[in-house]
């Protein structure tokens, strides 16, 4: 009896040893390259970091005070917020609209779905380079088409009035297929019998959509709103390629400003403060949307 227990104990001990061995690589790598830098960023935001001299000087909240007094950061934060506030609901709405269309059976459905999704698998940089050419005010295809049908041509990326909107249009094109496919998966999980029953009870198409489909899609909607917000707050690639933040700072965004402060001007402490604010913003919005969606979740 004692020897059995000892055997079990030994087996168990060996498994514990295995367990630590198996999780060690990922825990160590994540510890070194993810967790420590996260905490370190927070710490740096209270310091002046001089990398070349290897000097750290504690300056309290000075970085944050500078940040909040900086009109460039203010502009970048505002642009980022506008970008998020437009792109998140519009992407979800368009995704839902096209998912409803694709929920039907029609010829070449799979082919069309693949075409809608294609921008998703393309690198943002390469796709943005192509759009940069399409947006060219003189020879770009968009203005050429506008001229062709006799509409006034647009300055697109060249005017501070339209540049941010042009970037938003690009991002909506890039993400439409993704939003659609996620909603489509949500739609296909709704039991046909529910909608059938409602139809027999005399509910019209619009009523069935509002009372059954939409509430049952709430988890999908919550997921997309949160995921798209997180992604949108971090927008960088397309802004870097299309406008580099111009003209006159009209498309500057937080991550681009952070990139410039840290890796062009070597203001690491200042950039760390920006990163900290960005993180808090993402965390706050995620928490808010999560709580809100939890409160409104419906189950049948």
């Amino acid at each position, binding site marked *: 009896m004692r020897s059995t227990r000892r055997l079990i104990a030994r087996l168990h001990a060996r498994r514990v040893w295995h367990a630590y061995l198996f999780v060690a690589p990922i825990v160590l790598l*994540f510890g070194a390259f993810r967790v420590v830098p996260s905490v370190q960023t927070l710490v740096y935001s209270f310091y002046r970091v001089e990398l070349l001299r290897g000097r750290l000087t504690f300056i309290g909240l000075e970085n944050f005070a500078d940040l909040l007094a900086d009109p460039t950061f203010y502009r970048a934060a505002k642009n980022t917020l506008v970008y998020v506030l437009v792109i998140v609901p519009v992407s979800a709405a368009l995704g839902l609209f096209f998912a409803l269309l694709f929920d039907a059976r029609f010829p070449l459905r799979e082919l069309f779905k693949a075409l809608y999704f294609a921008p*998703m698998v393309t690198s943002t940089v390469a796709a943005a380079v192509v759009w940069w050419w399409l947006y060219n005010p003189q020879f770009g295809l968009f203005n050429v088409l506008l001229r062709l049908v006799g509409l006034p041509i647009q300055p697109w990326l060249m005017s501070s009035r339209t540049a941010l909107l042009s970037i938003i249009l690009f991002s909506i094109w890039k993400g439409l297929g993704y939003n659609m496919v996620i909603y489509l998966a949500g739609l296909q999980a709704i039991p046909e019998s529910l909608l059938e029953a409602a139809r027999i009870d005399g509910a019209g198409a619009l009523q069935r*959509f509002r009372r059954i489909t939409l509430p049952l899609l709430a988890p999908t909607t919550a997921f997309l709103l949160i995921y798209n917000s997180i992604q949108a707050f971090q927008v960088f690639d397309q802004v870097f390629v299309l406008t580099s933040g111009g003209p006159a700072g009209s498309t500057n965004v937080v991550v681009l400003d952070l990139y410039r402060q840290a890796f062009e001007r070597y203001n*690491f402490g200042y950039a760390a403060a920006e990163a900290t604010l960005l993180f808090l913003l*993402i965390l706050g919005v995620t928490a808010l949307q999560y709580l809100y969606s939890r409160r409104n979740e419906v189950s049948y």
Partner: protein
Amino acid sequence: MLASPLRALGTLGLLALVAGVAVLMVLPFYWMLVTALSPAADVMAFPPQWWPSRATLEHFQYALQKAPWLIYYWNSVVVAVVSVGCSLLFGLFAGYAFAVYRFPLQNILFLLILSTLMVPVQVTSVALYVLLSRIGWVDTYAGILAPNFASAFGVFLLRQAIRQVPLELIEAARIDGAGEVRIVLTLIAPLVRTMLATVAMILFLGSWNDFLWPVIVINSANLRTLPVGMALFKDPYGNINYGPLMAAAVISTGPMLIAYAVSQKFMIRGIATTGLKG
């Protein structure tokens, strides 16, 4: 279709709408290809030249002369393969440990791994760069790979998949004398191969298209990955030459688009079921 208030559209109207928007979705790709293959005179033509007056490869030749695209390819491949390979291997073993074993600190370690999902590389980049510059990893492959040797999503998804494997199977293998490492590699891995393939695809896509971190950590031209090379090819001296630029875009997006054309069902399903877009 029962779910849809759009039924009134009718199949024909539906098809017209879907096809019309599909044209808009594909137009940038089409125009990229046409511009890349057209002679310079066509590129600026009005009305637009929808089909090249003669197909030419001169823009490709120019683009290949101006930048080392083969080196960019090689760098992208190395980074993607090492990052996906390591992530799968570490993810498989860690996923197995979290799914099958019970050990002290298990939940804390799992939460620690998942918590990294909350802090994107955009936020950690500042301190990560400082750290890597101290250990001499800036401007190296190791530097590009540092935050991508492992994937939290990979661990999570593989743990979920391994949980579906009946414990009796694992017990039977143990009784047959198989060691734990062999169980993971020869019993578990084949059983969760669909999830392994999905995770590999998503991570490959993410690595292949990643831009921000590589552009931060790379200085040398011969370490640039494709997106970095592409972004810096755009505007080296302010002179704009759209033909070669679009040729470069074709070079840089071509392989991924071909891979997508071949396996689009698998790729769309993988991204839809996990909710991840690389």
